[in-house]
């Protein structure tokens, strides 16, 4: 290839050493990443590959549309509820079903709860170890750690004795040789910048967050009837409300509503007193590591979510911002239309699928998912043991979705950039405050760190919005409305012969859409375009690179065979490729295999 310029403004050069990371660890699903480094160890070309085939769409053909949510809930080990919600909305859109206000409030609480939970777990259990050195925490002074913790937050668990106990527990764990979750780390790498005390504080909160996250999901258990796979319903929510009910099973009663209320309060407290202060403390040591902006300063998109009133999905009724920004012009926010055949299209020129004409993209309603695994002429290795891929040919199981031809970044940072550009104080003020605290300019937001920070701010936003909808629900119930479902169109005999619908949400990791075609009461076509398809997409026919590839560009790697910087940036997107299964991981729970060629 040599050097080329992409239409979306990146200069690619694949002549330097090739570094291959496969699998990328601490993500959901299977992903491979290849980069070329120049003589100064700076990334000059990036190739992101989804190594797992997503085929949920095809197994839904011929099934009952009312059951689709239950299948989509099994796509992934994390965003179960988000897929189910999106699926319900797609069917409701197709059949013109209106849901009751209470169902809208409960769905919003479920969705916001998933946002907070996912962001918290991502930050502490999947991403923090890219910034926090666990082994260094063993050298921390517990007293100094206590001073540090008390200087940044009023959180009560911060005594020297508490940190000493945790440190001893970690020490015992590490000495037992069972590193477990801490096995996948490049401990001691010079890219780690935190002092031992900040490391100990963060590792302590890793454990506290692990302990606390189980409280948050009780909300899913109550409103969804069970967890980990909560129940959903086309037309509303499958939970009955009866405030006077006293039994231990059955309807949502006042006792359960109060329990949820109390969990929401605890969640707000934990996020605002632990997560946000930790985020600021960690970021303050990485202020000069502002790599990873990629597409965020150019093209971002959000479908919007969290309808204030039920059944109105227009931008003005969505509390989570909706719109698209292109070419970095924050002054203009474009409306997006998920139904327009020429707006959202998926391309497969570099994906292992077959289209009749691959120079064109297909709108999801017309989507085709037909596998076609073929490697380019410049692939090195064999087809089952690939040494390096040929990115000039097909190289990923992820399709390349584009909005009006543009590669777009999606996720919390995109949502915050759009909210900021709209001048919405709920998004602008926390960003300005955070940047002022860290002494950073607005440009710093467009970075790996910005992505991680936006996720934290959004966790706080979502926790507070849960309170808003819980209060709204309680008020509505008190006013005498206990309806949670509309079953007027439950009977397929009431449906038209054919119907098309689209459902969308903002999943924790970005814009999610399900497109459904119903014919003779059965599913004729079903296509999911998931956030990681947007962010992790390969190139398109015009040569535009996707968000992962763009974000890796021009990053300096300290140690070529310990690419913590690559993991840092990829993890900042909270990638989720677990769209079908977790099988086929190589022997044991090994570290990311890194090969330098």
């Amino acid at each position: 290839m040599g050097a080329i310029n992409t239409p979306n403004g990146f200069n690619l050069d694949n002549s330097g050493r090739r570094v291959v990371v496969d699998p990328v660890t601490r993500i959901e699903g299977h992903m491979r990443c290849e980069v070329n480094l120049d003589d100064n160890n700076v990334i000059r070309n990036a190739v992101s590959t989804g190594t797992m085939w997503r085929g949920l769409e095809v197994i839904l053909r011929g099934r009952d549309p009312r059951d689709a949510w239950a299948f989509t809930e099994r796509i992934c080990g994390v965003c179960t509820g988000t897929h189910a919600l999106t699926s319900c909305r797609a069917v409701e859109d197709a059949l013109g079903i209106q849901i009751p206000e209470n169902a809208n409030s409960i769905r919003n609480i479920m969705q916001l709860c998933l946002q907070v939970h996912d962001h918290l777990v991502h930050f502490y259990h999947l991403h923090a170890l890219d910034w926090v050195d666990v082994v260094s925490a063993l050298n921390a002074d517990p007293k100094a750690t206590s001073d540090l913790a008390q200087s940044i937050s009023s959180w009560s668990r911060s005594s020297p004795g508490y940190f000493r106990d945790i440190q001893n527990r970690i020490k015992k764990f590490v000495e037992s040789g069972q590193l477990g979750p801490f096995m996948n780390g490049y401990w001691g790498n010079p890219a780690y910048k935190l002092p031992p005390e900040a490391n100990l504080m963060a590792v302590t909160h890793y454990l506290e967050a692990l302990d606390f996250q189980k409280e948050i999901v009780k909300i899913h258990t109550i409103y969804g009837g069970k967890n980990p796979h909560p129940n959903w319903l086309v037309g509303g929510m499958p939970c009955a409300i009866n405030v006077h009910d006293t039994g231990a099973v059955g309807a949502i009663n006042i006792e359960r509503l109060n329990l949820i209320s109390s969990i929401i309060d605890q969640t707000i407290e934990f996020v605002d007193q632990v997560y946000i202060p930790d985020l600021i403390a960690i970021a303050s040591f990485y202020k000069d590591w502002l790599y990873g902006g990629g597409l965020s300063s150019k093209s971002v998109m959000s479908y919007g979510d969290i309808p204030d009133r039920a059944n109105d999905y227009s931008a003005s009724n969505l509390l989570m911002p909706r719109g698209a920004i292109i070419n970095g012009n924050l002054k203009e926010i474009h409306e997006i239309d998920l139904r327009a055949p020429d707006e959202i299209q998926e391309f497969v020129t570099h994906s292992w699928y077959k289209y009749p004409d691959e120079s064109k993209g297909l709108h999801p309603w017309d989507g085709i998912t037909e596998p076609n695994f073929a490697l380019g002429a410049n692939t090195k290795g064999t087809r089952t043991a690939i040494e390096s891929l040929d990115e000039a040919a097909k190289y990923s199981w992820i399709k390349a979705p584009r909005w009006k031809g543009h590669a777009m970044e999606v996720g919390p940072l995109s949502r915050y950039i759009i909210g900021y550009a709209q001048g919405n104080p709920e998004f602008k003020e926390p960003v300005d405050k955070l940047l002022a605290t860290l002494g950073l300019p607005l440009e710093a937001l467009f970075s790996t760190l910005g992505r991680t920070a936006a996720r934290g701010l959004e966790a706080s936003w979502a926790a507070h919005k849960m309170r808003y909808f819980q209060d709204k629900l309680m008020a509505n119930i008190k006013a005498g409305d206990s309806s949670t479902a509309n079953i007027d169109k439950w009977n397929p005999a009431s449906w038209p012969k054919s119907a098309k619908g689209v459902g969308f949400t903002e999943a924790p990791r970005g814009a999610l859409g399900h497109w459904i075609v119903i014919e003779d009461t059965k599913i004729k076509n079903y296509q999911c375009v998931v956030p990681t398809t947007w962010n992790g997409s390969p190139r398109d026919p015009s040569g535009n690179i996707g968000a992962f590839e763009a974000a890796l560009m021009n990053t300096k790697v300290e140690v070529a065979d310990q690419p913590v910087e690559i993991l840092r940036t990829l993890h900042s997107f909270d990638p989720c490729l677990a769209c079908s299964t977790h099988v086929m991981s190589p022997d044991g729970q090994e570290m990311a295999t890194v090969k330098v060629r």
Partner: protein
Amino acid sequence: MSQKKVLILGIGNLLWADEGFGVRAMEYLHTHYQFPDHVQLLDGGTQGIYLVQYVEEADILVVFDAIDYGLAPGTLKRIEDGEVPRFMGAKKMSLHQTGFQEVLAMAQLLDRYPEHLLLIGVQPVELEDFGGSLRPEVKAQIEPAAQLALTYLAEHGIHAIPRPQLQADQTPGHAALHLHDYETQRPSAAQACRIGDERFLGRIQYEPA
């Protein structure tokens, strides 16, 4: 002894043929037997880290899963207590091990590791059949696997009572995913491609580019 909290956990992805063994075995126990209140049955799916809160609460943990132990397809394997993490670290055993091994390690880190742990695994026959169900050899191991679990629980003083009639309507999970509907309502192979991951597709003949 009978007050110990027990968790019977089925893990795996229902949508990938024999990958669904763990969940189906748990479903079988639920539909055929009634357990005391301190026994919880859970369809863990592919949840990984999100299962830690269930695992840490258990004194006795019984896990059903598809395992790759290099055995003849359809072979049942019983692994107990200390053997579980040891084998998990040494060799790929559970097909979800990246997820579930981490769950066990996290429970240990929280100092709440189950006192007794039994893993009942089966070597899969077929995984490369997306949207498919269990193969006959694996399906035939559900009942013996359930018996292993019942025997183990009885040794710990926990006795399940056979249900007079099958608990058909209240199985955990959505009806469309229950074995009968799942199998009978499947689209045909002509309608829906049934192969998946490139490591599977790699075994299929194709024309080099």
